[in-house]
């Protein structure tokens, strides 16, 4: 007994029957997810929506992200509106992992009629570290009417804002003059003698 060497415990050959996405055994379903990559991962899109095991869902999302297929990744966007908070956040994280594609597919969601979708779009943009995010948020703040969306956008936008954005921030401040939180956030920038 003590420090010793050991052999890998994996069987040298895999099971004879290939794993399937509807296998009752979650370990086999996860193997099936990885077996789909790097080829056609289209079948994994509906799996993301109905798979209840987050471990398998994460594996599917990782393979979809890894595919780098913008069209396929765009089909994840509707899941941002899911009633399942775990799924919504998993999709946010997956989109953040492909910044170039995410900016393109998520920026249009900033114009969605549902403020919750707009907030989730801001969450994605907050994580992608992409130069186009500043302009996208600037555009959103020009017209945004929901205080929670504006607050989420300002949280990302303010550290990146330039002197030229002072006029925009003044207009946001006027639009939400009755909102105590936004007044608190914007007052140091919009008060006389304030600003950057």
């Amino acid at each position, binding site marked *: 007994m003590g420090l010793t060497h050991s052999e890998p*415990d994996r069987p040298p050959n895999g099971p004879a029957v290939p794993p399937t996405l509807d296998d009752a055994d979650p370990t086999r379903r996860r193997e099936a997810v990885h077996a789909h990559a790097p080829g056609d991962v289209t079948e994994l899109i509906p799996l993301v929506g109905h798979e209840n095991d*987050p471990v398998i869902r994460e594996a599917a999302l990782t393979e979809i992200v890894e595919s780098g297929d913008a069209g396929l990744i765009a089909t994840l966007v509707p899941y941002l509106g899911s009633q399942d908070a*775990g799924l919504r956040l998993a999709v946010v994280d997956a989109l953040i992992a492909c910044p170039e594609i995410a900016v393109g597919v998520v920026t249009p969601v900033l114009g969605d009629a549902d403020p919750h979708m707009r907030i989730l779009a801001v969450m994605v943009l907050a994580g992608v570290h*992409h130069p186009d995010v500043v302009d996208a948020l600037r555009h959103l703040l020009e017209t945004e009417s929901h205080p929670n969306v504006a607050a989420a956008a300002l949280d990302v936008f303010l550290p990146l804002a330039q002197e030229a954005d002072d006029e925009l921030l003044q207009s946001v401040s006027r639009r939400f003059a009755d909102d105590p939180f936004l007044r608190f956030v914007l007052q140091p920038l919009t008060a006389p003698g304030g600003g950057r």
Partner: protein
Amino acid sequence: MSSGPTLLAPAISDADFKRFSEFFYQRTGIHFGSGKRYFVDKRLQACITHAGEASFAGWFMAVRLGSQPELMQDLINEFTVNETYFLREDYQFDCLLKSVLPEVVAGRRDGRSADPVRILSLPCSTGEEPYSIALRLLEEWPEIAVTDVSIYAGDIDTTVLDVARRGRYGRRSLQRVPVTWLQRHFTRDGPEHHVVNDEIRSAIDFSVINVCDRGDIGPLGHFDVVFCRNLLIYFDERSSRHATENLYDILRPGGFLFLGHSESMSRISGIFTPRRFADALVYQRPETGDAR
């Protein structure tokens, strides 16, 4: 002789210093007061020049945007001393001995498995981490007398693996190792160095492992415990997802993952279960299916 145009160091104003200090504190927890101006300015100017920027403003915008992660890395490297040493972040080894291994061994007995307990150190850099695990087990874990333990260690960098296999370390690296341990497990090699004894060196399997490469990870088999400290913070989100999937794969169901103290697995993936022990937070692969 003519000299070329003089390169002026970019100016750092009081406002720049304040903005930078706040930013750096938020990112790293390291605070620089105004008394550190000389220290900070010199290093900041080096970072700005190295990035090819002419002014603090342009450089700072690029760093804050995060579009060039290497800028942030240069910054961290410039402002921190990067070194590894024996028994670093020792509280995690306390957690291994007091909480994690007893659970692993108990699970082994319940399942009546005679397999050795398997521990992986990844990345192992120049070897201090896997040797520290071995030392703590031999010196402070009585169960080692009745339990087989295998330690694997891997790194993507073959140069550091060569150093690890040689097991020769200087005073700075060994400063936390008790003298009695040095006497028992090392051989003196000149006035400044010690070499890990062959009994321990030969017991650890060192190999080239890229955590993002399934081809590297697959043949390793399953582990009860994986130390993967201060690696994921250097990855972008996509690579982190990939590495996380691979770390999940190499752990046995119920196996434990140690990350660096500033790393959060929840940011990367919800597939592990956080376990808060008395000494440390550890991530556990669920026994079955659902991680939450």
